[in-house]
């Protein structure tokens, strides 16, 4: 960019500041510029005092990816028993209906199954961890 135009922009920015304006359009000798400084429209959001770390659902950007969430509150187990291998691991192809893990609640073990065929992209909780309702457990593709 022309050093000259850069200077004009800087001048306009400075003027914006000085005059308290929000916006300046400028046109001269075939040069058109617009500088603006819109203040964020502070929509007041209530923040209530104590903030606790909450389990955040990972953002799923692509539509192919999906989350498998806990249907109940309990303790998640990744293998049928401590000595057995895990039900699934990252990279596994799984079929609809296949057991991915168990969630123990009140002494009963509830299998969490895949809703559709896919590949395990990531495992979001550790075996033995407590999980709440709809807490994401696996990311699938």
């Amino acid at each position, binding site marked *: 960019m022309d050093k000259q135009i850069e200077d004009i922009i800087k001048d306009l920015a400075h003027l914006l500041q000085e005059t308290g304006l929000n916006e300046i359009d400028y046109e001269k000798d075939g040069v058109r510029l617009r500088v603006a400084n819109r203040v964020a429209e502070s929509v007041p959001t*209530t923040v*209530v005092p104590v903030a606790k770390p909450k389990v955040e659902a990972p953002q799923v950007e692509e539509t192919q990816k999906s989350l498998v969430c806990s249907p109940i*509150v309990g303790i998640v187990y990744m293998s049928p028993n401590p000595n057995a291998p895990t039900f699934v691991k990252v990279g596994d192809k799984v079929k609809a209906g296949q057991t991915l893990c168990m969630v123990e609640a*009140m002494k009963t073990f509830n299998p969490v199954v895949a809703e559709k065929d896919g590949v395990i992209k990531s495992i979001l909780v550790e075996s033995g961890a407590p999980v*709440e*309702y709809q807490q994401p457990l696996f990311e699938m593709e």
Partner: protein
Amino acid sequence: MFEKVLIANRGEVALRIHRACREMGIKTVAVHSVVDVNAMHVKLADEAVCIGPAGAKESYLNKANIISAALMTGADAIHPGYGFLSENADFADMVEAHGMVWIGPKPEMIRKMGDKVEARKLAKSFGLPVIPGSDEAVKTVLDAIQWGEALGYPVIIKAAAGGGGKGMRVVNQAEEMEMAFTLAQNEARSAFGNDDVYIEKYLAHPRHIEVQVLADNYGHAIHLGERDCSLQRNHQKILEETPSPALNAEQRQSLGKMVVDFVQKVGYSNVGTVEFLYENGQFYFMEMNTRLQVEHPITEAITGLDIVREQIRLSAGQNLDIRQEDIQFNGAAIECRINAENPDTFVPCPGKIGQWHVPGGLAVRVDSGMYAGCDVPSNYDSLVAKLIVSGRTRNGALMRLRRALGEFVIEGISTTIPLHQEIVQSPDFIDGQYDIHWLEGFINNRKG
């Protein structure tokens, strides 16, 4: 004392319990449905666990998920609040079976009082007055007339298999009995295939008066006076006050004594409320609520006690360290239940609250989990705030209530504040002249 209490409820009562715990140095676990993730008690609690979808059946009534949440977080007691699982003896059993403390009376006591026929028998056997009646089927007109004499008119004939008003007849004098009895039998037969009818004393204009009790596990019990909850619509309390404008100090004392006596004989411990109908100087036992009640703050206002704190102490097995003679009833208090409803049609009005500004100043208390910008979900009851005021006299409390209602700002949803503003201007209410039918009449008249 407990280290950590799980609060198995939502809304203002969840916040109420959280506050009591916080003030006792007890950690709190909030449980919540998916739509309540931004609720005030969830934000304020030390820990929070999502226990299910919006529908209460899958979340606030989901016993397994609540027990799991309690075990997961290491809670040593569960407070059920009111509504939801608060009178569910099976849940109380489960809580105890998992080695935690149920903040409430023993499960068998919940069961006994939950069975209305059983509760009536218990009350009667331990000397509480119940609505007098034949109890069993009355077979002949002659017997019916004898019952009429014995009970004193007016009486009401009810189908034993009854419900929905079928087979019900009010009889004002002996002369009407023959025809009324025959009609009632016929109606009962055609409606239920069973012409058994019974007769009981008819209360035309009763008040709803209830007595708050505290009792420990060691046989010590006290009462905290009465609450007059006669202002009801569809059997829902709308506004409560204490003391009742209908009772004098002597009646209050003898009623209280009677209730404490009952509670001790029946072996009840924890907080509880015994509800009566009251007409012409007589009390008639209705039922006992084995839990905290919505309207407990008016009792707190005039006694200076923290009922939830006492409940937690009693549940932890501590003894009641307040004697009856320590309880003073200072002045008067009124609670308005402010619901998210159209104040004319009473259609619930869930939605997003805009501005939220509560009244302040002397002797004004607001219990609410709402705040500016929060949602009132459509899945639960419509109570959004309780406004409690007190005064050195009933009139002082009334004047204060008027000014406080006028300061309350809730935008974005309709509320019943305008109804309360009309009630507190009504001469009947100002004079304390009302019964359990009064509010519905008042609402119908103002529409006309």
